[in-house]
């Protein structure tokens, strides 16, 4: 199935854009904006708004239509888990299959000081009425907070015999998160603990695809709740347990 953006009619290809150009706001600037959007491949370009941001910059809102379409059948993307369980289902699953509490250690690592992501997944309260892992009776959850060095979180994970490690990365400016995330994998491999625990990453600018590329077991992006992560953890651990038997 080939798809195109839908504005007010099937396959009209309508797209809304906003951007800034480094020129003074004037008629010529607006024409430049129109031509620029045209160069991007859009047809019927309409620059509907232009506003000066300073003497050297102008902000534009534009609409255009595109001929480009995409074969949706050929799009490949694997979600970390097909079907998520609820908090209660996760707990029952652990009780039935593991007969012990699972240990999950999490932190916002490296220089990143933003705990909003790891807090949403781990803290008792959770986020948007989805309880965090600390609330799960069958999960022993430790949130180490922010700016935790890779060495520290791994050390703690070994000490507690963690089943899974959650790493949150919010700041992604200049790809600082990639370096840090890769560092943890390398460290885990060097210390020969990579196979002993699940390594999972999360953050608004990461996803499962990136996680796999970097060598993580899974990655969770914006809109993730604790039960999503928990479902992945219990299913993956169960899968490992049963295939090893």
């Amino acid at each position: 199935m080939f798809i195109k953006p839908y504005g007010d009619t099937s396959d009209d290809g309508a797209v809304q854009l906003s951007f800034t150009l480094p020129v003074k706001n004037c008629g010529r600037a607006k024409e430049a904006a129109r031509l620029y959007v045209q160069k991007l491949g859009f047809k019927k370009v309409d620059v509907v708004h232009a506003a000066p941001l300073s003497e050297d910059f102008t902000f534009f809102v534009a609409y255009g239509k595109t001929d480009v379409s995409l074969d949706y059948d050929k799009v490949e993307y694997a979600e970390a888990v097909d079907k998520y369980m609820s908090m209660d289902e996760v707990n029952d699953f652990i009780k039935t299959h593991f007969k012990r509490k699972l240990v999950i250690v999490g932190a916002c690592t490296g220089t990143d000081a933003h705990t909003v992501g790891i807090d949403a997944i781990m803290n008792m309260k959770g986020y948007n009425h989805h309880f965090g892992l600390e609330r799960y009776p069958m999960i022993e959850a430790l949130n180490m907070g922010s700016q935790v060095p890779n060495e520290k979180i791994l050390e703690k994970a070994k000490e507690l015999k963690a089943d899974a490690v959650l790493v949150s990365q919010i700041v992604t400016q200049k790809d600082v998160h990639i370096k840090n995330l890769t560092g943890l994998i390398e460290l885990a491999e060097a210390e020969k603990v990579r196979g002993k625990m699940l390594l999972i990453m999360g953050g608004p600018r990461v996803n499962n695809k990136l996680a796999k590329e970097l060598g993580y077991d899974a990655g969770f992006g914006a809109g993730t709740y604790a039960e999503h992560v928990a479902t992945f953890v219990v299913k993956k651990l169960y899968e490992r347990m049963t295939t090893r038997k």
Partner: protein
Amino acid sequence: MTPVKSKLGLSKPKIDSARELAEGITAPVQEFIDGHTTVTIERATLRLLGADGADADGVPVPNLIASQCAEKLSGGAAQYYLNALVKLNRTPAELNKEIEKGLNIADIELTDAKRIQAKAAELVKGLDARIAGNVAHRNAKLKQYKDKVKSPLIYVIVATGNIYEDVKQAQAAALQGADIIAVIRTTAQSLLDYVPYGATTEGFGGTYATQENFRIMRAALDEIVEKEGRYIRLVNYCSGLCMPEIAAMGALERLDMMLNDSMYGILFRDINMYRTFTDQFFSRMINTAADIIINTGEDNYLTTSDAVEKAHTVLASQFLNERFAFNAGMPARLMGLGHAFEIDPALKNGFLYEYAQALMAREIFPEHPLKYMPPTKFMTGDIFKGYAMNTLFNFVSKATGQGIELLGMLTEAIHTPYLQDRHLAIENALYVHNTMAGFADEIEFKKGGVIQKRAQQVLDETIEMLQDVKKRGLFTAIETGMFAEIKRPRDGGKGFDGVYEKAAGYYNPVEAYLKKKLKVGK
């Protein structure tokens, strides 16, 4: 700005009792502070006396001197610097160069105390003149352009990592209507136990706070001040392990505001509590001397905990921040106490609670500029919903007479602001502020209605909490997780080894100057 009578029906005796509790809670902490110094207080003192520069490895001169002094820091580092100036007959600039090259000034035998004191008097006089000059300049510009002062003042952040890119964005924002520019610091600078030297062009999620960067941005904003005929304030982060040094640099380079909280570093950066309490006191004296408005960090309580359930922790912290600031000689007009619009947008009547809590802060702290922070926790990639939330935030901010409004960015959850994000935020704020200019004077609240009851409830819960904190003592209260549900042991955290009990005969001419100027202590 001071309301004639409480629209919220808040009880004056209750507010007074909360203040008394805060006084009781901070008193034993202040006793500790008075008997101690820290490595960064000593470095700040050196900076204010002229120590500056860095060696070939980038180690700043104040840090070199502090290392040379080692345990002698407990007696005060200033005497060694002053002694070297006197005995070697050097200017601070000349001496700094020699220290950069390896001169150890702690090894030089101390000369007669009178000569050291005379040198101190000379340098402190110069320091006082520089700070007074900065204050006079700011006041003159504020007076000259007073008809263009907005209420609330519009505050935006730049955070490119490169001071020269920051300049472009800051100037653009100021031209669009921003009154206050904050250069956010690179992530993790708060945990560096030194302040980098020189102009910087690399940073993550922000730009290094350095004295040279302060100077570059100050000059860039001063250009816009003259062009626009409006005073533009510059802000940085007086927090972390170098809190007093940042204050010193800000005082020297005419910053106008500083993020500065008495407990933020302890709770959210795991900095040792003794270190933070001692540092915040010295920092606040410097900020007060330089007429710099502090912004406290209570918004952080609401990003880690629920904004409805934990609203009272914000008010409790405001009372403590206020008392700690009073202890440092700071007048209320310099206390930008923080709070935030962070209630879950899905909550029914959430707007009424936000309104109640913001007005409550205004009524309880009538002379304080109040720093109001935008929604962040519930901002998502849905920039359109985010823009709507920011509009309501702007509404509450204007309706409740906040002093300093940090504008919300529609791309809050996505990236550091693009040039156009700030523009859209400022447009939104200017529109709302103008269209409802006289709204606050028109409105009263139903007696016993949702809004009144909410504010009264938060005040009651705050008093309960403060009573509990007083019973346990502030150190223990923090250890047991009473603030932000975060537990910090009193001897844990970063920077504990940089806290020193003042030795008998501790000498610090800058501290003496500040205390005298601000009438602090006995």
